[in-house]
């Protein structure tokens, strides 16, 4: 019987082809907008998490100040420094390599010039674990030294690599020494082993992901081995970031928890952030944004629904006599209600199908544009769940919009309906 009602409804829609299509257009515009926005949101999320995954890998986590990335994080505002005992961290079970960056401003004196007086000034001094360069290149970004120089190795202490700007300002070259003054009376003469390649103005930044540096900043910094920072300033609350790789086969989340517990027990205030944590944050962020946008697009769905309602009211009015006839030949109120609900639901569903296809197409086009603009490969996501929900939702939207008109049709007194001209 349902199949017959379906046919009756479909025939009625086809009979009023022009009006039905206009109604369907009203529905699919809204559906298109919602589907496109959600799909783009999902694509964006996938793209970002893929990028994060390519930097992190599945065996790496980072350590940040708990205020920057933790349960009490107070929103964006840049990374905060923290204190860290690197040897304790390295002793945590499951940790394979740990490397850190600490940074502070120090008084630096260049090599003596021809007249005997050195150039000097305050410059940012960055302590890098050499492992950061050897093991975690994706984090720190590429540090390229000029010909004749090199980066420092594990175990070296009295060496430095200068940013090209610094080298120019101190008039220092490879093989010469610079003096860095630390806390109290601590000071060290460091041999310049390398000078970074200056960046071209228009060259695209390839700065490190985690440290948030860009190339021009790199050129203004004096790089020293991490341990050298200890000699100059002692352990202090100036660590920007720590990167940890776990032993093969270890559960990175478990090791991260262990590291966090161990370090915090010793007075650090840090959180260990894994790929999972970051993905979650990104997921929450992007889904909040797409939900917000989809909500706005949802308003157009409402308009589409009102369109369906309007069409159905007109249809009920036009077919008053037909409804009377159906009732006279034995249609129950429920039958009439069902036929009209199917009719309006069907218009919603057709709008949903067209809207979903257009929405997915639109999101693919938009993704390729966004991707080209930012120079990344944007993922195009056609979520089966999204499609299923959209189709069901559009049918329900239509049926719901048709509920009121259909009830009116069902409740028409048969004698009045038959008499209607």
């Amino acid at each position: 019987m349902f199949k017959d009602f379906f046919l009756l409804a479909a025939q009625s829609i086809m009979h009023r082809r022009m009006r039905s299509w206009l109604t369907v257009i009203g529905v699919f515009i809204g559906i298109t907008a919602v589907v496109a926005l959600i799909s783009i949101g999902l694509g964006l999320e996938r793209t970002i998490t893929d990028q994060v995954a390519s930097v992190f890998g599945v065996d790496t986590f980072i350590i940040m100040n708990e205020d920057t990335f933790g349960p009490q994080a107070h929103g964006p505002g840049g990374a905060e420094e923290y204190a860290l005992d690197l040897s304790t961290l390295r002793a945590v079970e499951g940790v394979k390599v740990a490397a850190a960056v600490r940074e502070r401003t120090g008084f630096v004196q260049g090599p003596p010039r021809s007249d005997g007086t050195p150039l000097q000034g305050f410059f940012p001094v960055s302590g890098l674990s050499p492992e950061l360069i050897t093991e975690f290149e994706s984090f720190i970004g590429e540090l390229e030294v000029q010909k004749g120089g090199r980066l420092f190795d594990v175990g070296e202490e009295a060496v430095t690599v200068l940013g090209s700007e610094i080298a120019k300002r101190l008039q220092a070259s490879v093989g010469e020494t610079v003096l860095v003054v630390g806390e109290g009376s601590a000071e060290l003469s460091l041999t310049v082993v390398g000078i970074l390649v200056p960046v071209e103005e228009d060259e695209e930044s390839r700065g490190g992901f985690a440290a948030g540096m860009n190339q021009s900043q790199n050129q203004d910094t004096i790089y020293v081995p991490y341990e050298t920072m200890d000699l100059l300033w002692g352990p202090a609350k100036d660590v920007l970031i720590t990167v940890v790789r776990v032993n093969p086969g270890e559960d990175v989340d478990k090791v991260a928890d262990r590291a966090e517990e161990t370090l915090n027990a010793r007075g650090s205030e840090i959180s260990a952030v894994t790929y999972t944590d970051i993905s979650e944050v990104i997921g929450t962020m992007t889904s909040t944004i797409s939900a917000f946008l989809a909500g706005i697009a949802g308003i157009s769905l409402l308009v589409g629904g009102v369109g369906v309602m309007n069409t159905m009211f007109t249809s009920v009015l036009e077919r008053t006599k037909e409804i009377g006839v159906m009732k006279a030949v034995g249609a129950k109120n429920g039958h009439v209600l069902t036929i009209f609900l199917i009719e309006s639901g069907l218009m919603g569903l057709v709008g949903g199908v067209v809207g979903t296809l257009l929405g997915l197409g639109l999101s693919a086009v938009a993704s390729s544009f966004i991707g080209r603009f930012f120079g990344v490969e944007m993922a195009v996501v056609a979520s089966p769940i999204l499609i299923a929900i959209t189709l069901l939702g559009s049918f329900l939207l239509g049926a719901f919009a048709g509920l009121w008109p259909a009830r009116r049709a069902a409740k028409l007194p048969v004698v009045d309906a038959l008499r209607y001209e």
Partner: protein
Amino acid sequence: MPLLDLKGITKDYKLGKIVVRALRGLDLEVEEGEVIAIMGPSGSGKSTLMHIVGALDTPTGGTAFLDGQDLQQLKERQLVTLRGKKVGFVFQTFNLIQTLSAQRNVELPMIFQGIRKGERARRARELLTKVGLADRVKHKPNELSGGERQRVAMARALANDPEIILADEPTGNLDTESGTPVLEMLKRLSVEDGKTVIIVTHDPDAAAIADRIVRLRDGCVCEEVDCV
């Protein structure tokens, strides 16, 4: 027991604040297989009587029995079932569904009775053949002449094999040429199939096929004439 037994039927309508009494204590008995013509001027209560007989409406007062069932006691749903099974309607303006073919129009009452598709199609074609439209089953109403449309409507009225055929001015929109076969068919339904046929009409030709003519005036039966 007569198929239709009406006693002291009254029917009031409210038009705004005014109550209009359309039927004022009408009595009527109709036996199975009879052909009755109900005649009378406009406003005499013909249509109201028709609605009550067809279980489309319930009387305000009096008792109405259709095939032994007290119409006053039936709920809306039961009235629908009753008319779906026992009554077939033929209207002046045919009232076919424009979007459906002749066959689908005839199938419509059977759909609401939940009869299966194959059975429905077979019976619809059979009925259309009976009314002489075997070659018109796929046609839509607007592709048929007035006479043909009314014959489709008659096939539809017979779909659920009802006991009573109610025809409201069946020839009112037809010329004599196309009206005559319709009337002949109505007569045959009584003679050959034992159906009870009630025709509401102004048309003397239509009244001529009746076994009995009932004249209404001011909501009452004013004259009953048995025809020979």
